[in-house]
């Protein structure tokens, strides 16, 4: 059983995003982190590896700075690291990203793939289902936990009516929502071991993927529209006035 977890480095959710010259200024991002849903995917992948054995490879497609995130994954228990070096992910379309990642998974020999349901930068959610299709694997999204019962893998997923426990067979892809699991933190030994772990670094061409012509091109980034300043009231006595405004000015109640 080979397990792969697909990770993306994104601006930390607490980081401010600034726009300059019609583009998000990545150099102004104060902190880069593993995308939050990917953290839950990694935690669940580690638990599956611990319960059933198998090697866990952490894979990312991104610029050189993403190497730190792979080291973080090694510090909590990823066995090997695979970095597909792409300096500008924004220059790739969804098909190209999925093709690279599916090729990376094949390169690693994994047949069970964990990823976040979407990354905290584009919030798209195309990667899991797309990679699953390219691998000819089944796909379960909105997953909160995964377990092995010997013959198949079971996953808890969100459904319109609550939750469902579903079973699938490998090859399969699990796209994670925020899970119920507590995320583990690396210990000193893990951090020391991770420093010695060397990632395999490949380019898209090494995987036979052509990234020359993207079918999506970014025209501009802009800051979100600013709201005009609102009205501020002091004290609970003002609640009546606000309810009146919601009814008469805003017409929302």
């Amino acid at each position: 059983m080979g397990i792969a977890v697909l990770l993306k480095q994104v601006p930390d959710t607490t980081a401010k995003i600034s726009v300059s010259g019609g583009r998000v200024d990545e150099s102004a991002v104060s902190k880069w982190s593993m995308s939050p849903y990917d953290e839950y995917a990694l935690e669940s992948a580690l638990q599956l590896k611990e319960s059933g054995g198998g090697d866990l490879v952490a894979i990312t497609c991104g610029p050189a700075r993403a190497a730190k995130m792979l080291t973080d994954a090694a510090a909590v228990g990823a066995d090997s690291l695979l970095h597909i070096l792409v300096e500008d992910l924004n220059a790739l379309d969804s098909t190209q990203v999925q093709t690279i990642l599916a090729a990376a998974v094949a390169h690693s020999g994994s047949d069970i793939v964990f990823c976040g349901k979407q990354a905290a930068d584009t919030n798209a959610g195309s990667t899991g289902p797309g990679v699953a299709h390219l691998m000819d694997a089944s796909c379960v999204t909105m997953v909160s936990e995964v377990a092995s019962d010997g013959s198949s893998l079971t996953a808890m997923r969100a459904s319109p009516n609550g939750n469902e426990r579903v079973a699938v067979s490998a090859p399969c892809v699990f796209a994670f929502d925020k899970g119920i699991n507590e995320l583990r933190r690396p210990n000193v030994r893990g951090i020391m071991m991770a420093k010695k772990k060397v990632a395999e670094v490949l380019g898209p061409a090494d995987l036979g993927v052509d990234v020359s012509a993207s079918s999506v091109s970014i025209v501009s980034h802009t800051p979100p529209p600013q709201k005009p300043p609102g009205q501020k009231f002091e004290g609970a006595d003002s609640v009546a006035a606000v309810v009146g405004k919601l009814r008469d000015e805003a017409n929302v109640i």
Partner: protein
Amino acid sequence: MDVTVIAETSGDGLHPVTAQLVGAAASIGGTPTVLCAGGTGAAEAASISGVAKVISVVGDCFGTFDGAAWAEALNSVTGGDVIIAAASPSGREIAATMAAIRGIPIVQDATDLAPGISVTRPIYSGKAIETSTITTPCAITLRANAFDAAGKGGSAEVSTVNQSADVAVAVREAIAKASERLDVAEADIIISGGRGMGGPANFSHLNEIADMIGAAVGASRAAVDTWEEIPHGMQVGQTGKTVTPSLYIAVGISGAIQHLAGMRTSKYIVAINKDPDAPIFSVADYGIVATWEAALPALKEELGKL
């Protein structure tokens, strides 16, 4: 422009966003074909103005949700330059898989479209807006409540196609929601509590007010992470749900950047916080500087008079 719309369903009928998908298709010059997975909502889809035709796709695979199987079945029924679906969890998965089957690009969660095709979407959970151009054929999912809905009065022809695909996901157990409360992703009015509520038991005050005005109850990440009684399904913000209700009432929420990212596009925002400098007031249309203990009883009383 040959546009295919994947109908979004809710229970046994159509979700209101489906008419918005049709409206958006018209904005890029399309008179869409609407696909109804499992036949759900086909008659209703035919009555949406501007729909060219409705294809009711029926097959065994539609008994269980398996996005890959649904996408395969739907994909074989239609061609088209542009596939449009809702940016719901199932809509995103089906559209992404159909795009992968066809080898075409997809852009998710668009909030504006223009001929060309120019696509606008929030990135970094709304901390910036991206406009890009995408070549056809392509797939695009659309955020609910961002596009004008097409009207009623259509009378499109409905045809039925039998088309199934192999389902690889077997449901072993269904676990019903603990509460029957409205989901924040579906609600037109949301009242959310933060850590300022002091404890999970105090959310009962929010529930009472929600019941009076048909609202859903949400929570900040701080509240969800602090109290296990507050489930993640209630979380509004960057690692929770992004919402655009008509009215969002934030109670005891300071307004961390990741919370604002998830609710700042609400039409009207009311903030109740005892700290006059709380960042939540920067996005509030109506800010009330007060403790929740003082403000919520007054709010209950005033809403009771409506």
